[in-house]
């Protein structure tokens, strides 16, 4: 009884999460442009997608900006964490507060203020301004996920490495960094997703002729979103799914190996 309830509950959660995506995937094979009518099964939106330079360019921009901004933000954020870790407690709390504010700010406020900033400094709007603003809003997320990891570190280990003759740089690289890595990676992934997601900040900081996927999709709202976008979303979803499965498969073996090892002891 309890088990069935559990299963139904999980099924419901999955239904709510995936029903919209499933609808979209089904519609990407619909020959008719409207969702109200099934016009037969077709791959034509996929072939049109491949031929549509604008969409592919927007996809390229999106991935490139997400990647560059999250890498750069990860470096800056991690360095900032190291610095903050060595501050006095009060300054550190104040600094943490300051870095948290941009996350609480509404996106539209961040977007417009960045736009105004770029204008007053005479920037030329384009790829560069989008990248700069993505780095800006990504940094707090990196700090947020690296900082707790930092606090867990035992400072004596670093000191012990120094005592044993390591230079500060190699002590950091070989002792501190490996322990921080999970935090850094999750910060990187979070930054990457935030950047992929963003519409409103990109809208206000982009120049003419540069589009990311989200701004491109949004411009289609008035005339109706083109089914090519359904096709693209389906591909992206499947790609991520495959990556996750590939990622998860060896872990299972690991888990089994771990268990075996545990049993032996």
């Amino acid at each position: 009884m309890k088990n069935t309830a559990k299963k139904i509950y999980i099924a419901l959660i999955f239904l709510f999460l995936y029903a919209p995506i499933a609808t979209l995937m089904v519609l990407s094979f619909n020959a008719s442009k409207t969702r109200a009518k099934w016009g037969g099964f077709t791959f034509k939106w996929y072939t049109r997608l491949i031929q549509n330079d604008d969409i592919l360019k927007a996809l390229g921009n999106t991935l490139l900006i997400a990647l560059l901004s999250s890498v750069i933000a990860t470096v800056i954020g991690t360095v900032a964490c190291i610095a903050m870790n060595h501050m006095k407690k009060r300054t550190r709390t104040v600094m943490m507060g300051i870095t948290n504010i941009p996350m609480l700010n509404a996106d539209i406020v961040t977007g417009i203020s960045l736009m105004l900033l770029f204008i007053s400094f005479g920037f030329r709007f384009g790829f560069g301004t989008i990248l700069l603003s993505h780095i800006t809003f990504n940094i707090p997320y990196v700090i947020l996920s690296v900082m707790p990891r930092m606090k867990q570190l035992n400072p004596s280990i670093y000191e012990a490495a120094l005592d044993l003759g390591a230079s500060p740089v190699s002590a950091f690289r070989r002792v501190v960094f490996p322990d921080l890595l999970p935090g850094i990676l999750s910060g990187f992934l979070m930054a990457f997703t935030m950047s992929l997601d963003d519409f409103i900040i990109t809208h206000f900081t982009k120049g003419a002729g540069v589009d990311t996927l989200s701004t491109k999709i949004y411009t289609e709202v008035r005339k109706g979103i083109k089914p090519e976008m359904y096709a693209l979303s389906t591909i992206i979803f499947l790609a991520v799914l495959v990556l996750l499965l590939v990622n998860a498969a060896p872990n299972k073996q690991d888990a089994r190996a771990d268990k075996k090892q545990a049993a032996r002891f």
Partner: protein
Amino acid sequence: MRHRNVKNKALLGGIMLLAAAGIAGCGSSGGGKGGQVIVYNWGEYIDPDTIEMFEEETGIEVVYDEFETNEIMYPKVESGAASYDVVCPSDYMISKMIANDMLAELNFDNIPNAKKNIGAQYYEQSKGFDPENQYAIPYCWGTVGILYNKTMVDEPITSWAQLWDEKYADNILMQDSVRDAFMVAEKLNGFSMNTTDPQELETAKNSLIEQKPLVQAYVIDQVRDKMIGNEAAIGVIYSGEAIYTQRENPDLEYVIPEEGTNVWIDSWVILKDAPNKENAEKFIDFMCRGDIAVKNFEYITYSTPNDAARELIEDEDIRNSEIAFPDLSKFNNLETFVYLGEDGDALYNELWKEVKSN
């Protein structure tokens, strides 16, 4: 275990990196010999081929950018964040831009096709927002009317009043935007749709509140799919969408109500501080050419004000369609939105909030 996990995540990152680098490599940009022109237009509001043809013929590189609503276009243009040359706003937004001195006066000698091909009645209608026809050249236009499903009503629909008929309770779709919704109520009561008279607006508001229980949903672009899917009997819709919905569902019929309606016009304008004015003129002139305008008409399917283009439409049904090309002189009380000033906008928004929250 943990290290393994980390390695996998790194792998994932690596794959994404490769994907990004690979796709980004495809994008390329080249500068034109004849300089450039920066165009800011609605999304999906041009046949991409015509841009390529323009670039080939003139050697001018087109930097093309798109917006989704007038309201989101305005702050970008006003701030000067990206210096655009040519923009294609709607009627009321053009009057706002004129009021704020953002537009350049056009030199029609450099845009001969605009004088030659665009029908006189559209310039006449444009006077509502551009009184001297100095700033705007009509690009797309249409009416707002009622789309109804012949199988779901038992009488011809002719009037906005039928949107208040209890027979159609839960079968009515209204537009979910302030001005469009108030337009319906104002026309119903015989007012101008540009009125700012508080008394008249109060009456219109009460009509909308009275109608609210009958309305199935306030929608924007879902009206297309809902009407095609037989989910509602009557809905307020833009004429440009009507042709498309009819093609998908032959039971649908479009009508301009007898009380009059909104004639909207999206027009090309050149910004006052446009960096490439000459190229902007060339671009607009090119878009006004009959053979180009007809390509755009076929792509966008919104009515074209270009008489030369209309001659070139091959499909006779479309060329003579009452929906796409109604004879404006046959209808009474056709109006075009104008900018009502900040106070007017605020008043409308306030009343609309009351309607929606009632």
